[in-house]
């Protein structure tokens, strides 16, 4: 564990509140938190015990599912009707937009997976803003999509979780029961400071 600060009060008699920087620790930036890569199929991926020391979170992932489906995000194991979302998508020929209000099972993010080619994965980048702010509801913005050389789509999304609770866990799962994430699907959680 790196030394992040060192008080010299015990080293220099009569001097307090002086600190020495170890020239390694940083206070601002983009930090690793956790990564999950599936060795076999799974019904969901969850990050728990998220440190409450960052400003924002970002999830970056590659994912493949047993059939084309949406990804849903749930926070703090909340399955109540506390989520809403909007999205704008393009599927290679048409564009569309939709919304959901008071959704009961998550944020309903569209577009995931490419089950028609075993090496082809959908990808996503989701930002969870002010995740530990207890004075506001939580907002997600995302960019995701998959291309399978003749099918697929790309979208931008926003979503809201109407809770002022600090987020301590994030669960991602296919929107449809019985659909699973496939082997090698991988999600990485990062935190930003500053």
């Amino acid at each position, binding site marked *: 564990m790196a030394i992040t600060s060192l008080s010299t009060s015990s080293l220099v008699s009569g001097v307090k509140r002086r600190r020495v920087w170890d020239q390694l620790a*940083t206070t601002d*930036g*983009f*930090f*690793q*938190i*956790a*990564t999950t890569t599936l060795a076999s199929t799974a019904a969901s991926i969850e990050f728990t015990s998220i*440190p409450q*020391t960052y400003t924002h979170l970002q999830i*970056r*992932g*590659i994912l493949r599912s047993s059939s084309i489906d949406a990804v849903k995000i749930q926070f703090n194991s909340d399955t109540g009707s506390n989520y809403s979302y909007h999205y*704008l*998508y*393009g*599927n*290679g*020929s*048409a*564009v569309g937009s939709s919304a959901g209000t008071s959704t009961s099972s998550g944020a309903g993010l569209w577009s995931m997976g490419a089950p028609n*080619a075993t*090496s*082809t*994965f*959908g*990808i996503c*980048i989701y930002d969870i803003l002010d995740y530990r702010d207890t004075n506001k509801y939580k907002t997600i913005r995302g*960019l*995701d*999509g*998959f*291309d*399978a*050389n*003749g099918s*697929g*789509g*790309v*979208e*931008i999304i926003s979503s809201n979780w109407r809770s002022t609770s600090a987020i301590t866990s994030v669960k991602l799962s296919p929107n449809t029961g019985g659909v699973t994430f496939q082997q*090698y699907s*991988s999600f*990485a959680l*990062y*935190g930003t400071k500053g």
Partner: protein
Amino acid sequence: MAATYTPIASITLGTATATVTFSSIPQTYTDLILVGSLNTTASLDYSFRLNSDTTAIYSTTRLTGNGSAASSARLTNYTLGYINALSGATGQHSFIFNLMNYTNTTTYKSALVRYDNSATETMVRVHLYRSTSAISTISIQTDSSTFVTGSTFNLYGIQAGNA
């Protein structure tokens, strides 16, 4: 906790250039992010290639808004991956190119791109490169003409991990 989002290389064009290449990319990160801020004086399209591969294994789906309409289109079995639209445009361009799991030799490579030309359009793209090879070279090239002097291209690496 380990900090990441690490600068790998930075290119600022001292002269007008048609192709910019990042080679010998370290294989120590999970994702790559390439940020471009550039000007063009002629209407042109530009694109990327990975590992200097010119075979027809690139495809993309895009979503575009041009101020009056939204549209979506797809290209399949291409020899490169377009970053902007086929219509091309002059002026100030910017893009953020996210290449995911670029060292993974099990999966094909996918990328998400945010592209903007403040004068003409805003766009998101998803790309597929149907190769399981690790990526060690990224080049950005124009179809015609050049990127002008002062255009910048910055490459970053993000490393996943467990704190």
